[in-house]
């Protein structure tokens, strides 16, 4: 089991979700996060002062999948989220030891 964590541009969320549903992934959890990276933020004007806003809004997607599916999921997210412009984000694949579906108590692959 793998936990695929992707940081993407907010406006790509719908595209990524549709792509994942397209390959049969029917569950995910998203978080509004802020990212710092090569993409420089904008400057905000505040009476008498400018502040560089370095942290930009991003969406963090978590999808738990079986180890076999992981590559496919990574690729799917990667192509759906890509704009080719700086700030597109990253994908991390992290191992999962166990998965449990709270409602039924099913575990691992059954729990997804």
């Amino acid at each position: 089991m793998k936990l695929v964590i992707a940081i993407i541009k907010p406006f790509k969320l719908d595209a990524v979700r549709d792509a994942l549903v397209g390959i049969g992934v029917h569950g995910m959890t998203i978080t509004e996060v802020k990212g710092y990276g090569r993409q420089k933020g904008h400057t905000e004007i505040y009476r008498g002062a400018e502040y560089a806003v370095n942290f930009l809004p991003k969406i963090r997607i978590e999808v738990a999948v079986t180890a076999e599916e992981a590559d496919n999921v990574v690729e799917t997210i990667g192509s759906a989220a890509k704009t080719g412009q700086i700030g597109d984000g990253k994908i991390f694949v992290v191992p999962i030891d166990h998965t449990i579906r709270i409602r039924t108590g099913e575990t691992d692959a059954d729990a997804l």
Partner: protein
Amino acid sequence: MSVAKLARATIIAGALTLLVGAPAIAQPAARPASTISSADTAWMIAATALVLMMSIPGLALFYAGMVRKKNVLATMAQTLAVTALCSVLWAAVGYTLAFTGHAPLLGSFQRLLLIGLGMNSISPFAKTIPEALFMMYEMTFAVITVALVAGSVADRMRFSAFMWFAALWLVIVYVPIAHWVWGGGFLARAGVLDFAGGTVVHLNAGVAGLVAASMIGPRHGYGSDNFAPYDLSLAVIGTGMLWVGWFGFNGGSALAADSRAVFAIVATHLAASAGAVTWMALEWWTRGKPSVLGMISGAVAGLGTITPASGFVLPWQGIIIGLIAGLVCFWSCTWLKLACGYDDSLDVFGVHGIGGATGTLLVGVFAVRAVGGTAGLMEGNSVQLLIQLYGVVVTMAWSAMATFVLLKAISAFVPLRVDKQSEIEGLDVTQHGEALQ
């Protein structure tokens, strides 16, 4: 030092005034009720409501919309608490010391605790409305002036210290200046013109704010951290209410539902508009983008600047004054503040102080005899500009000096500022035990 001497003289004179003023109790201000006009009363009640709306919720929103999330409620609390506290104090001692008696430095105790204020009482300053209404209308001015000061020390002043400051500053700083300029005091006698509070309200609050901000010191992280406003939309709502309420502020200062009130309102609205357009244009030009914060700053700059002039000039002159206001206040908020290095959190000095002084001087330039009875430089009466300057200097001197002494005195008992950890955690939680979710 001559300042110290002046201060001493003033204090002694003030004390004497009280003695001198006392006998005035014998002379009832009340005149035949028949002079009360229902129409003027109708308008002045509405004007009073409008000015109160400027403070709560207007100013509370305007200020709270420019601070960080952790200080939103605390910023609102300052305006709220000032409104409550200073209203009671105004009724108890403020009104009588500002608007009764004939002494040049301070009023009398004739209306202490509103004693003698009856259904038929009329103030000599407003002969066609009930005195209680005049007292109340002026109360709303006192309240908003004190509340304005809070913007300079937002994000870091201790609530308890601010409460002491508000109560004492009202009596020691606001009340005397109001008496001098509006209550028949020495500035009024010298011919200083201030229709609705260029000196008494805006310059006074701005200078006090500057002194307080300097004494308390800059916010932790000033110049490095991101102090972007949490929710500017609150400030926009506040600006709308200030703008609309200002019709009562400037229009009501005519104390009657007449053409002068109307002229004041039209000039006010046009100055606000011109100020907003000017600031917007300046930002667009210097930074590439016009910010909403800039537009509302320009509008308030125009409003503050036209205030002393509103009942003395022609409507279209409001556009000129608003344009000047936008230029001058933009400069003071963006250049002067950085150059001098003080941290006036919400630019009370930059907008209200500079704007109030500018507007008071511009009365001397633009005053039209046919509107307010006095001519200015443009109509050949150049001395008026000097008189206006005199009013500005006296107000600045007293406001700065008395604010300084007062804060020093308070700080001997209560620290003016919260500790660093509390400042970082935010005043909402540390001063009031609550927070936006």
